[in-house]
């Protein structure tokens, strides 16, 4: 096995041009190492892009939020926890695994791993995130997240391609507040059994003007719930009838999409999780 550690994007493209279908890219390694120890991979080339400075950046530009492929969950949390529109990303990043994991794991890696339980999936769906891919010839291309993640543990990367950043547009979410909340096996250090992300823009009259709602860890990829979004528009978040109506739709969506073994729990628990998510949104308005 050859280990390549490019220091620039140009060198990384060169490295990628040598890739075969056995070659791998490792970022934080929090998923890779576990699977490698089980003998799942036998790479001929292992590429580590951690020496490329710009890939560590979490940059909030005028048009877009750009999360470098090497930015850790901790770094993402630090930048975005004070940005209401993208607070949901910070919520999700701040609750992945343990502090040790959050100091290594990356958003890009979480999306590449494409676990249905990955916390960065529902928030990526929430913002219609796009992944920027670098190819062996030095060119880049953008792929929407729902075309990038094809199913459990399946992404659209071809040999010789690597994710270099995750991009979310700024414009559509100006003035929004957002939140993410999950249920795992326990309060902390836990893999999601159910995750929900929502963002709302409030009108001057205190009612919802625009809403988005996604549910993770239920189906193989996150679910947008447009009925809920439509229902929320024009309503006050503290309206308890709204919460009940939303809960009902979410529960039904979960019921229809999740595996039978988990159906009862996930459908029932949706009530608590939805209520907690609404409470988080209200705190942030």
């Amino acid at each position, binding site marked *: 096995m050859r280990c390549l550690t490019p220091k620039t994007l140009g060198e990384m493209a060169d490295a990628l041009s040598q890739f075969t279908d056995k070659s791998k890219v490792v970022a934080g390694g929090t998923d890779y190492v576990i699977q490698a120890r089980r*003998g799942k991979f036998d790479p001929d080339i292992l590429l580590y892009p951690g020496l490329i400075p710009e890939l560590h950046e979490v940059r909030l530009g005028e048009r877009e939020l750009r999360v470098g492929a090497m930015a850790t969950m901790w770094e993402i949390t630090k930048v975005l926890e004070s940005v209401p529109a993208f607070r949901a990303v910070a919520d999700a990043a701040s609750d992945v695994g343990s502090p040790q994991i959050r100091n290594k794991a990356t958003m890009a890696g979480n999306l590449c791993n494409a676990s249905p339980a990955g916390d960065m999936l529902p928030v990526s769906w929430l913002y219609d995130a796009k992944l920027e891919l670098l190819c062996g010839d030095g060119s880049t291309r953008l792929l929407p997240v729902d075309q990038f993640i094809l199913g459990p543990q399946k992404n659209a990367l071809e040999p010789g391609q690597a994710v270099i950043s995750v991009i979310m547009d700024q414009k559509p979410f100006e003035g929004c507040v957002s939140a993410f909340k999950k*249920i795992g*096996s*326990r*309060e*902390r*250090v*836990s*893999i999601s059994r159910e995750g929900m992300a929502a963002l709302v823009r409030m009108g001057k009259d205190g009612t919802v003007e625009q809403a988005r709602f996604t549910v993770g860890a239920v189906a193989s990829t996150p679910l947008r719930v447009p009925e809920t979004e439509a229902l929320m528009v024009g309503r006050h978040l503290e309206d308890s009838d709204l919460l009940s109506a939303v809960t009902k739709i979410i529960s039904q969506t979960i019921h229809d999409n999740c595996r039978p073994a988990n159906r*009862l*729990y996930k459908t*029932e*628990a949706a*009530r*608590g*999780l939805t*209520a907690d998510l609404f409470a988080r949104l209200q705190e942030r308005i």
Partner: protein
Amino acid sequence: MKLIGTDKPIHDARGKAAGFVKYAADIMLPNMAYVVVVHSTIPHGYVRQIHAEKALALPGVFGVFHCFNTSERTYSHYRSNIAQELPDEERAFNSYVRYVGDRVAAVAASNQETAEKAARLIEVEYEELPFTTGFDDTLAGQNCLPGESPIRDEFSFDVGTAPEKDGLIEVESFTEIPRLHHATMEPHVCVADYDPYQQQLTVYSPNQTVHGIRIVLADFLEMPFHRVRVVKTTMGGSFGGKQEWFLEPTAALIAKALGRPVKLVYSRGEAMSCTVVRAAMRAVVRSKFKPDGTLVALDMDVLLDAGAYIGNSCDYIRTLSGKPFRCYRVPYFHYRGRVISSNTPVSGAFRSWSAAEEAIMMEHHLDQAARRLGMGRIALRLKNALLPGEIDRKSGVPLEDIRIYEALEQGRSAFHWDELVEEDRAFNTANPRFRRGVGVGCGGHGNTYYPRFNDYGEGRLSLNEDGTVQAALTLHDHGCGTVTAMQMIIGEVLDIPDTDVYLPEGDTAVTPVDYGCFASRTTFVLGRAAYEAAVMLRDEILERAAKLFSLPQESLYLKDSAVRCRNDEGVKISLAQLSRESIVKLKRNVSILTQFNNTSNPGVTGVHFAHVEVDTWTGFTKILDYLAVHDIGQPINPAMCAAQIQGAAQMGCGAALREKLTVDKNGRCTESLSKYHLFLATDLPDIQVKLLTEGRSQEGPFGAKSIGEVCYVPAAPAVCGAVNDALGSSLETLPYDPDCILKYLAKEREQ
């Protein structure tokens, strides 16, 4: 007392915190081979063929060992002393496999990676047999071979005579508990070294009895005992998980075959699926009470699933039957225990050796009885709690100064139980989502094997030339402070600093034959042996001093590492000086050997209180407050006693609310901590601890009683009781995880 009752860090705390301490996995020997075991992938059947060619072709592979090229000799993984009569059930590598995880082969290679790679290249052909994973299919005999009965062992007995009196209130309860994993931080490890020229085997492993392993290895490898040396290494936790032998025979066999040292380190997955688990059990408990709450008769019917091998199950199911008598007054007791064997991970010892399981059954039953009787849960327990001076009615042993009654009373007030009950009522009325409740659990345990075996301990002490002390006792510190406790006991008697006592741990080449660390016997039995040895050494020192310095022996005493004389303040003979003079002038070391055998096993008990909040919308339970009250006699090192209790509370909360080792329909069990949900520090409130120290034992050192296991016994029952109180439920199957709670609430809503 200068040392006893003071708070001391454990002897290797600093080294552990700094990452300096060496565990078995850190041992590196020249020319060492790395061993990786290949486990059965089917739950039941025969190995027909093993294809090792690809593995053997890999550079760096020293050998592949399997059922067709190694000894057919069998051993019992549970054998731990010379007195046991047990069937030898398994081979190093089995051709008849009984669960997913059974050892079928192993690779030895020049490094771990090569060994792992080679292990993956081994192909095993099986002939599959029908298998079972649950109680019902196993009871139905679906995995039995011709001639086998689904019931592998049955045991019943009575204590007292059945009551005839009418007007008794009858209560019945059902409890089911899942398999548990010990979750030690260090997995199972063994390093074995063989010298073919002296035919000498040396085995290093974290374990609870070096002499027990020696018996098994000597028999299995047909070697004399003196050619087998077993060394206990620093242990990163056991909780009973390292008192049965899965790695040692395999590693020793390969070391002997290769004539080079080998290292075998189990992964977390292997530790979970291929060592031992706590057995799954079902229990029906029936009782009769007088209307005032006096227990008149108790009937327990327990079914234990041993998993793939019977191992300790027959002893375990019998031991469980004695536990009610360590806590409550039971005038009439009927017991039936049965053992079945499914194709699931092997059951074995778990902290408290069945007392915690019995307490889950019993305390759940008492909570239901209290409801039936219209009594408070604490009042019902007070009514039946054993009092000082009573005896264990099953074994006939006096319980001495047992303080369970006092622990209940003091805990009730310190926990503000009655106030909490009122507050919770108001809270629950006002809150649509969260429900609160309180729970109490009582538990009793022992301090020694006595009277099951005649227990004993041996200690040797000698004075070094500089006045420090060298000790030889067979200790197996699990990380809970055994070594420090012994240093404190010896230091106290000799009036020297505890750090002036050097104590190696169990090593068959160095320390005396001993049962090992079982039955919470270490402090009580070996602590007393250490005490006796120190007293004997003190007498020896004083006698030598009298002789050497022509002083009246009865006026001599030890103070601050020197011999002093009551009649003459000017006399001050340092222990260093005494040691040297004895060697030079008397031509004798100052050393002694003592043996002690105890003939008592006093009551040692604890009561835990938990206050919980259940989120009825997500099923999560939060522990709000927790208090553990323990009747432990004289604590040797109170800070470590408190730490043990806090750790036990954490384990008990996990057992009550989350932990279960599940087996899927193909017989594969949970193999990762990502799917086995332990309680973390972030899940817990500050665990309050109250030690009741007045109920001294007669034989323990300075009146000490045990702590390591008894503190785990009441934990899960207290938490379970609190959840049932919050929900008004009597949930029968543990753990009360979010799924269990939401399922219950959904069912309630439908009705």
